[in-house]
């Protein structure tokens, strides 16, 4: 069921065309041609970038994310860029060039392209900016639209939540519903009467005063524009998913970019774009896989060092050394391979032998001294006859 590539590209162009028409209908001034979108996908150069800077600025301003005064206060050639970066940051979009604030300028110029701007546009569309623009435009044009009055949602502190309050609340909600119904039917009647009046005017007086006809004409234009806007939105909504498929391909393109990026710090390299597909996940898994392998290597290294210390005669097989390392850890979990308190065995033997000799010598001397003392005592006691054992 795969359609031919040419057919798909024609379709994509039409879909982007629908988007462009809708953007223009919402009152944006700088809407690029559909072809510019295609060029942006393949990093179309400065001219394309400029158009997208303007488009993003225009969207951010119209949607009220950044104010026009802020734009006027900025100076220099990069004011579009600063404003867009600030606006995108406010909408929660993150990319290196946004947080860096130097997008597309100077040292980073090599790896920044119009594709980044296209992705940013995709982000804005996906987060509902388009609907915001549409609502604003409709509110501007439709002067009979009832705009909701902002209501202070703070509940009275006296309100206690028990069944009586709940019942009263239900009553009041019911009452509001009925009031709404009454209002609705009054509006219906007003519409009917207005229609009757207009019909009567059209029938009776062709030469109506200039002013009223001008007003009517303006109103008519306005309604026509409103219809166009809503129609454009409807057209866009019907084909929107094709655009997002294409946007996926832009993201893919962005991720498999042959230009080797040198991220300033590793995490931003991962989070800088929202990943469609599993490419980012693969990267991450790869990193995780690498992590424990490194730790194991360290352990093995430590085991080898111990082997070298005492058991150098044994066969240096990987399995053995690993078990040795574990044993060594059990015996002495904190100490390293060469502890200063531990002596070589031969030296210790010598030390012990020496100590033994010293002690034996001291013992013999003491025995001699005791014997002499005993003989002296015996010499003093004449009448005592001693029978040696």
């Amino acid at each position, binding site marked *: 069921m795969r359609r031919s590539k040419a057919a798909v590209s024609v379709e994509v162009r039409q879909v982007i065309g629908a988007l462009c028409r809708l953007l223009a209908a919402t009152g944006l001034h700088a809407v690029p041609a559909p072809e510019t979108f295609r060029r942006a996908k393949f990093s179309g150069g400065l001219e394309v970038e400029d158009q997208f800077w303007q488009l993003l600025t225009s969207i951010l301003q119209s949607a009220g994310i950044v104010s026009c005064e802020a734009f006027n206060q900025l100076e220099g050639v990069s004011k579009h860029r600063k404003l867009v970066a600030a606006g995108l940051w406010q909408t929660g979009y993150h990319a290196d060039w946004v947080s860096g604030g130097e997008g597309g300028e100077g040292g980073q110029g090599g790896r920044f392209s119009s594709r980044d701007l296209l992705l940013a546009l995709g982000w804005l569309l996906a987060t509902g900016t388009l609907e915001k623009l549409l609502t604003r435009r409709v509110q501007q044009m439709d002067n009979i639209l009832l705009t909701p009055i902002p209501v202070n949602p703070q509940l009275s502190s006296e309100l206690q939540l028990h069944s*009586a*309050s709940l*019942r*009263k609340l*239900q*009553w*009041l*909600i*019911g*009452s509001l*519903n*009925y*009031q709404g*119904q*009454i209002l*609705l*039917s009054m509006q*219906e*009647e007003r519409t*009917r009467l207005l229609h009757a009046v207009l019909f009567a005017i059209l029938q009776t007086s062709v030469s109506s005063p200039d002013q009223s006809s001008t007003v009517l004409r303006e109103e008519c234009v306005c309604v026509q524009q409103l219809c166009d806007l809503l129609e454009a939105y409807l057209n866009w909504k019907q084909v929107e998913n094709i655009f997002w498929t294409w946007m996926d391909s832009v993201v893919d393109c962005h991720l498999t970019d042959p230009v080797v990026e040198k991220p300033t710090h590793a995490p931003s390299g991962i989070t800088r774009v929202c990943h469609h597909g599993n490419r980012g996940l693969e990267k991450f898994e790869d990193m995780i896989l690498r992590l424990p392998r490194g730790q194991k290597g360290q352990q093995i290294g430590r085991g080898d060092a111990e082997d070298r210390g005492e058991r150098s005669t044994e066969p240096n097989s990987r399995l053995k050394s690993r078990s040795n390392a574990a044993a060594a850890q059990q015996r002495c979990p904190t100490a390293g391979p060469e502890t200063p308190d531990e002596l070589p065995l031969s030296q210790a033997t010598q030390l012990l032998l020496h100590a033994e000799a010293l002690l034996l010598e001291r013992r013999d001397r003491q025995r001699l001294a005791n014997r002499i003392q005993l003989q002296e005592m015996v010499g003093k006691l004449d009448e005592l006859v001693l029978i040696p054992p």
Partner: protein
Amino acid sequence: MSVVTVQLGQCGNQVGHELFDVVCADAQDGQRKAYGTASCERFFHQTTHGDLVARAVLVDMEPKVINQSISRAAKSGRWRYGETSHFSQKQGSGNNWANGYCVHGPSHRDMVEELVRREVERCDRLAGLMAMMSVAGGTGSGVGTYVTQCLRDIYPSTFILNHLTWPYGTGEVIVQNYNSVLTLAHLYKLSDAILVHENDTVHRICSQLLNIKHISFGDVNRVIAHQLGSVLQPALTADSQGVYSRNPLGELVSSLACHPEYKLLSVSTIPQMPSASIAYSTFSWPGLLKHLRQMLISNTKMEEGIDWQVRPTAGSERTSSLTAPSFNTSLANLLILRGKDVYSAETGAFEDPALYTSWLSSQEAFNLWKSPVPFNKYEKSATVVSNSQALLRPLDNIVGKAWNMFASRAYIHQYVKFGISEEDFLDSFTSLEQVISSYSQLC
């Protein structure tokens, strides 16, 4: 602003006819042009020949009553029904709600909807729909419930008021309590408000106030029509800014039945007397209002036999009124005064917070409509439409009797064979028990 009436079944068609008769006579009677115009616009449309044609659709499964109503209306010479705005069949619903709701209703749905749509399209602005029926029989209750359901689907944001006639407690139909339970439980979910007249009460009014010896359905229906007319005829309301209100059903419903658990409305009117006596009677507003207030709080539907011992008590001392004959607590009341010197009437006694439930202030619970035009030959008349405990006991009786029959599974197979299961019965019982419980706790 117009109201389209749908008359369903024998009772609905008879009461509807009486209502149009009363309203038309009243609108053409006085010299007040604005009142008459407003009333006519509300209930009739005018043909190119100047005939008044009722904004009504007549539906019955038997042709007899519809034909009678149509010919009697035509004979009156003042108004008539639309030539093609009726629908009837040859065979009735056999007093079986299930037959009406599951069989006749669905099979004639398109025809009835088309008739209503035509009437609605004749209105410059639709103020609401009023379905009139009884709850005892098969066509009024069963087909009526089904039609109300269809109307709710087609006109989701239009006010729908159901006028129900409750049967005599002694019984006209053996399964009337089943039919009543099924109708009420279903309508409670569909209708914005349910205005109820009990045959027993109206019968007592006929015998004790109007001194009628042999009371016919016509007499009963005329009393109902009089009370209904006094509610629905044009009046000056709080929102209408000095002109006759253009939204009678909307204002009625939004002043009385905003809470989804409380939708039962009852009506009391004063004075009511034989037409021969009216000329010899004089009324004062303080006297009428004093009586009407006592009728309201003691739950007496007529001037005779008012219990003057009942007094409003503080909220904490109130008891559930299912057993003791006690104070009738209101959720909301709408007082409608018509006649001479109406602006001098003092209605403060109806704004007493002691009359109302503790959770709704009397400012929200009480509404007043006035009209300086005397209604239906009475120099002064006062009507109170009340969302109160007044219907609690009769409702409890109906549900209790139906439950006793259901416990022994009497006649259930008659309903099951048309597609109403025991589960459906149980659902209906449950929802009405909830209504009874809600009204019992209204203090």
